[in-house]
């Protein structure tokens, strides 16, 4: 990454579907506490009333992990988890907003919605990582990240439990990096102190 001109990282967006929780639970424990930016995680999940993903996340990370509520302010060193059955959007006011509009790719939350919104608000300082999954959600979102000048990361499809989503992404979007689960935490930790060569 030394030969690219990076701006400071504004936000890291992670999207995943089938097979992505395993990857998240592998990378979360190794994340540094002082990253200096927020992480927003959108995973497809059942709209079940007894969903305890927030507490499971808390157990896997040193960072503060919260499930998103309406108009929550976006703070550094915090992992924001998309709640079941809501789309997650970012506001210019540096707040998170929820939206209960139509499903996209049969999904709510939809990864595309959050990636696109992140691209609009954070532009070139947005970093998006698309993980394992069984549909095409997230691919359009990565295109928005790319055209806004942000950084596109895709899980190496060969390492994905369900490779449809990352493979489709690698076909449709030129990734900045295709990375394996074992490299992800290290990569995100490096984003914390990358140097602007401008």
């Amino acid at each position, binding site marked *: 990454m030394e030969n690219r001109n990076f701006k400071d990282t504004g936000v890291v967006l992670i999207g995943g579907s089938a097979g992505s929780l395993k990857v998240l639970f592998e990378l979360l424990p190794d994340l540094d506490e002082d990253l200096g930016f927020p992480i927003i995680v959108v995973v497809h999940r059942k709209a079940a009333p007894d969903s305890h993903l927030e507490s499971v996340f808390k157990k896997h990370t040193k960072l503060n992990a919260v499930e998103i509520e309406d108009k929550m302010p976006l703070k550094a060193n915090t992992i924001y988890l998309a709640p079941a059955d809501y789309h997650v959007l970012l*506001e210019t006011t540096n707040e998170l907003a929820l939206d*209960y509009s139509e499903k996209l790719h049969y999904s709510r939350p939809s990864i595309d919605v959050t990636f696109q919104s992140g691209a609009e608000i954070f532009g070139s300082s947005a970093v998006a990582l698309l993980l394992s999954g069984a549909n095409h959600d997230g691919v359009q979102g990565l295109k928005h990240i790319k055209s806004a000048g942000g950084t596109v990361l895709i899980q190496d499809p060969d390492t994905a439990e369900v490779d449809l989503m990352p493979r489709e992404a690698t076909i449709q979007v030129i990734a900045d990096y295709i990375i394996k689960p074992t490299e992800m935490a290290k990569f995100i930790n490096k984003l914390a102190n990358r140097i602007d060569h401008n």
Partner: protein
Amino acid sequence: MDTAVLREHELDSLFQEIAEKYGYDFTLYSKASLKRRVHRICLMDKLYSFAELRYRLIHDPEYLQRFVEEITVNVTEMYRDPIFYKTLREEVLPQLATYPFIRIWIAGCATGEEVYSVAIMLQEANLYDRSLIYATDLNPSVLEKARNGVFSIRHMKQYSENYIISGGKKELSSYYMANYDLIKFDDKLKERVVFSTHNLVSDASFNEFQLIICRNVLIYFERELQHKVFNLFDSSLEKLGYLALGSKESIRFSNLEQTYKKIGVEKIWRKVQ
């Protein structure tokens, strides 16, 4: 149309213009969601530039009606978050039962799925005949759908499951007639319902209630507007009345925080002062 075409300041001035000309005020709606909706209607209606959209809106009052309907989110379900409804059934309705006459306001009812959910619960608690439900929305066309009580059969299986989890006493299907791919709810379920347009942004309080249900409406409002609506609810709620919000909404950071007490884990508060 590329979303980049929708510049925030242009949208702001368009919504300012619509508010002045038509009285529909979206200026304090959350921007991110609103922008998505505007982009969506431009795609659907093949409007290729912001200027085209603006021209149509300013010169075609009939189009305005469609615009309002499409940029507001009218997605709703029966017994969404069944545990919420279970709490209503078990904690709130027994308290409401102590009143000789029960008034409930469902604000932002969209196509009415929540209205029928509540009407059924009131029937099962033997409270329906002395209750009156005010079901309001800013869109006349969705209210018309709510009033008709005709819904697609597609979601009924899911609704039935949620109804049972919520503590439903019968079969949900005993409340409707199915005909091919549509169902129609028993007319009795709307006998005690008043469907009426009401805009939370601009209209005043119109009655006093013991229960106000407004779920997943405030998420589309900026904080300033949320505070205004909380005050409207407060002035429309009797002492010891209940306010029920969506599962990710909260009265936190509002004036109501001091005078309302949360009951249980669901987003239901009681006006204690």
